[in-house]
């Protein structure tokens, strides 16, 4: 074969965000007509890489070659003009527009500058939908009325409405039923037969084996392996590539003996339709239990349902043997539960306020009489709570937004400490926290447990769960597939479990 340049060739791509180096010299080659899989743990840099490819992020350094020519993808439109289309995980469709209007959004057929509402658009949309195996979708229907799977088809039709040479699919199977996945794979097969390249991102190894040609593995912002054969590389090797890490975390010592106190939190048959299956869980004072699983495995949903922020479809939560009113955050908080949510800024912090007010917001009644706040007592208590966690700077009057991620997280913990909470639910507690500050946060969490708190920890970083928790529940697609003491598990085994549902050897 003639030495034809690859369709796409990215080399030495770096991209930094404040405090994080998301991409650290990534290389990626994609040939026309292949399915190239991107694999990596959460935070490995996959999303950033595809955003660079889609023109949504500009790389700090590095070159991108398209059919051998160096190009700059200044904007999503520039990428689209070259023939690069991206189908994001969160579908970016306009619900109040019709299928045809969505497909042609941004490049509506026009006449004399006016958008032609018309048959041409509908006809071309219908042709695309037929090609995608979904002729039953009416181009005139509103996108908001379609199912998630159908919306994804529309998203794909939109990508194909351009003269596309490369399609990026970010976890396209996450929202699909098995037969819909089959249809997706058929479409991918048709596309590649036409010479279109597909960059396919998925957590599911078995999918990658089925449709992938080559695999690039990302870890900590680097491509640790490029162009491995997708079908023949042993799972062990892939997992090892994904997990071998550069940064070693220091985890605090576990107590010698398991706590034997009466359980403080009992979860019995708790379930939410479509999110997670009935779950049983017992948490004792002094214990840290970890939930390990991938994004979409139902981890955050479980925490939020226990906390009452989501209403369960079955089951109950008991604290000290008393059942909580389902779906009531206030009942949970009153019973002694506290949540440090995943999206700290959106779900926990009052960004315009001081540290003091962020810490005291859940226990205002403690510093007030008849609704009147004793601000001296409030400040004193906030100071004591933040000092206990060595929050920096040691001045609770500063605005919370000036704090680092780790210290903002400490402020959230201080909020529950001040409230006298007994069960802490931690959802990705170290997200957005500098690597250096993590060890300190781990020590804080362990100390709180030693002082008698029960902690339920969710993290997509497997080493974090294994290093911090006493007991680990492994989740896969809303179901607990394995429960074991953390000492008896290692990262490979957990990753095998979360990806394939059963241990491989």
């Amino acid at each position, binding site marked *: 074969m003639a030495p034809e340049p690859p369709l796409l060739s990215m080399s030495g791509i770096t991209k930094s965000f404040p405090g994080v180096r998301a991409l650290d010299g990534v290389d990626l080659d994609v040939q026309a007509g292949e399915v190239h899989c991107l694999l990596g743990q959460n935070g490995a840099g996959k999303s950033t890489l595809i955003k660079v490819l889609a023109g949504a992020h500009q790389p700090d350094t590095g070159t991108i070659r398209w059919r051998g020519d160096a190009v700059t993808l200044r904007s999503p439109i520039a990428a689209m003009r070259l023939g690069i289309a991206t189908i994001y995980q969160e579908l970016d469709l306009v619900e109040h527009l019709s299928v045809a209007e969505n497909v042609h959004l941004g490049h509506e057929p026009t006449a004399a500058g006016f958008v032609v509402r018309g048959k041409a658009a509908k006809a071309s949309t219908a042709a695309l939908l037929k090609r995608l195996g979904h002729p039953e979708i009416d181009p005139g229907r509103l996108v908001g009325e379609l199912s998630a799977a159908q919306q994804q088809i529309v998203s794909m039709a939109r990508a194909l409405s351009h003269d596309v040479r490369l399609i990026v699919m970010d976890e396209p199977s996450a929202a699909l039923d098995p037969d819909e996945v089959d249809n997706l794979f058929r479409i991918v097969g048709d596309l590649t037969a036409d010479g279109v390249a597909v960059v396919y991102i998925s957590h599911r190894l078995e999918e990658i084996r089925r449709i992938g040609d080559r695999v690039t593995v990302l870890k900590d912002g680097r491509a640790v392996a490029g162009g491995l054969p997708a079908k023949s590389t042993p799972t062990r090797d892939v997992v090892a590539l994904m997990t071998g890490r550069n940064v070693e975390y220091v985890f605090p010592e576990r107590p010698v003996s398991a706590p034997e106190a009466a359980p403080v939190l009992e979860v019995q048959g708790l379930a939410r339709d479509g999110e997670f299956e009935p779950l049983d869980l017992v948490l004792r004072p002094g214990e840290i239990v970890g939930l390990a699983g991938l994004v979409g495995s139902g981890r955050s949903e479980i925490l939020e349902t226990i906390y009452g922020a989501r209403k369960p479809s079955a089951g109950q939560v008991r604290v000290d043997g008393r059942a909580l009113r389902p779906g009531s955050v206030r009942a949970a908080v009153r019973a002694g539960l506290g949540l440090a949510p995943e999206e700290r800024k959106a*779900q926990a912090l*009052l960004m315009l306020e001081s540290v003091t*007010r962020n810490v005291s917001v859940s226990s205002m*009644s403690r510093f007030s009489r008849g609704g009147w706040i004793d601000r*001296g007592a409030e400040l004193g208590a906030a100071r004591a709570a933040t000092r206990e966690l060595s929050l920096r700077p040691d*001045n609770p009057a500063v605005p919370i937004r000036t704090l680092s991620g780790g210290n903002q997280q400490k402020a959230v913990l201080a909020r529950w400490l001040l409230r006298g909470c007994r069960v802490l639910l931690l959802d990705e507690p170290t997200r957005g926290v500098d690597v250096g500050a993590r060890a300190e946060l781990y020590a804080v969490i362990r100390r709180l447990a030693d002082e008698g708190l029960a902690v339920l920890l969710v993290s997509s970083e497997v080493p974090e769960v294994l290093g911090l928790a006493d007991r680990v529940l492994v989740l896969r697609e809303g179901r607990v597939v394995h429960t074991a003491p953390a000492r008896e598990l290692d990262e490979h085994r957990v990753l095998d479990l979360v990806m394939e549902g059963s241990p491989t050897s």
Partner: protein
Amino acid sequence: MTQHASPPRDNTDKVPSVGQPPSWRGLLARADVRTLSLLGVLAALVLTGGITKPDEFLDTRNLQLVLTQASVIGVVTVGMTFVITSGGIDLSVGAIVALASVWATTVATQDYGFAGVLFTAVIVGVGCGLVNGLLIAYGGMVPFIATLAMLASARGLALQITDGKTQIVTIPGILDLGERDAYVLGIPPLVMVFAVVTIIGWLILNRTTFGRRTVAVGGNAEAARLAGIDVRRQRLYLYLLSGLCCGIAAFLLIILSGSGQNTNGNLYELDAIAAAIIGGTLLSGGRGTITGSVLGVLIFTTITNIFALNNLQSDVQQIAKGAIIVAAVLVQRRTASVS
């Protein structure tokens, strides 16, 4: 006004406070800058009035008139400030003032005398606020829509009650409050009511759990909910509070005009929102200042007065108001991005 975060004794701490760029002094200074600039604008306006019409503007009677006019809209603005701080909006305040003022001045109501009129004005205001609050907090309606509907219905009901006629107040006790004899140390009773409402409003917003919850709901409703705050109940209370302020304002208007009309409170919603915004309350919620709102009201009322004294028509006033709103918001955005 806003965050005088700590009494001094707490800051003379022995612990070395390392690296705290925006210290509480900085915060205080920034809060003061906002208030000071408003005071500066007000001073400039007073100066303008004093120069252009020295005899008329600085006349005691004129200053009393300005303050009296500011009182009615001022009370409404205090309530509006709470609603906006919580991330909401109340477009129905003017209509509620109108409805409360005509309901309280019907012949039937006036039979019950002073207390009957006052009671009716307040109850009608609170009742409308209750409907707003229930629709928004528990009915899941967008505040803009719910209060817009209330605006239309309350105005319509006010028209129906009066049939477009002015309802004259005949109760001497009410009319007397508007007379000069009722002034204490030269201060009209209306202005005293305004001052009391302002002080209570300031205390509630800055010193109570109710105020904290209001700010928390406006700053981040989801975070407030997950922190254990009953967001819906708080929203209900806030629209009740706004309705209560409208009821009080309606009573002040009855004293001021000696009558009730269905055209009362026309465009109060815009004046109150504008005053709160130029005062420094964030339209997106999460930060509110009663002091700023009151200064905003005084600025607007003073402009109106100076323009009237200089025989400038109301069209010019409206244009000037619009320009001030734009200028204030632009200035705020700059200070916000700096901080």
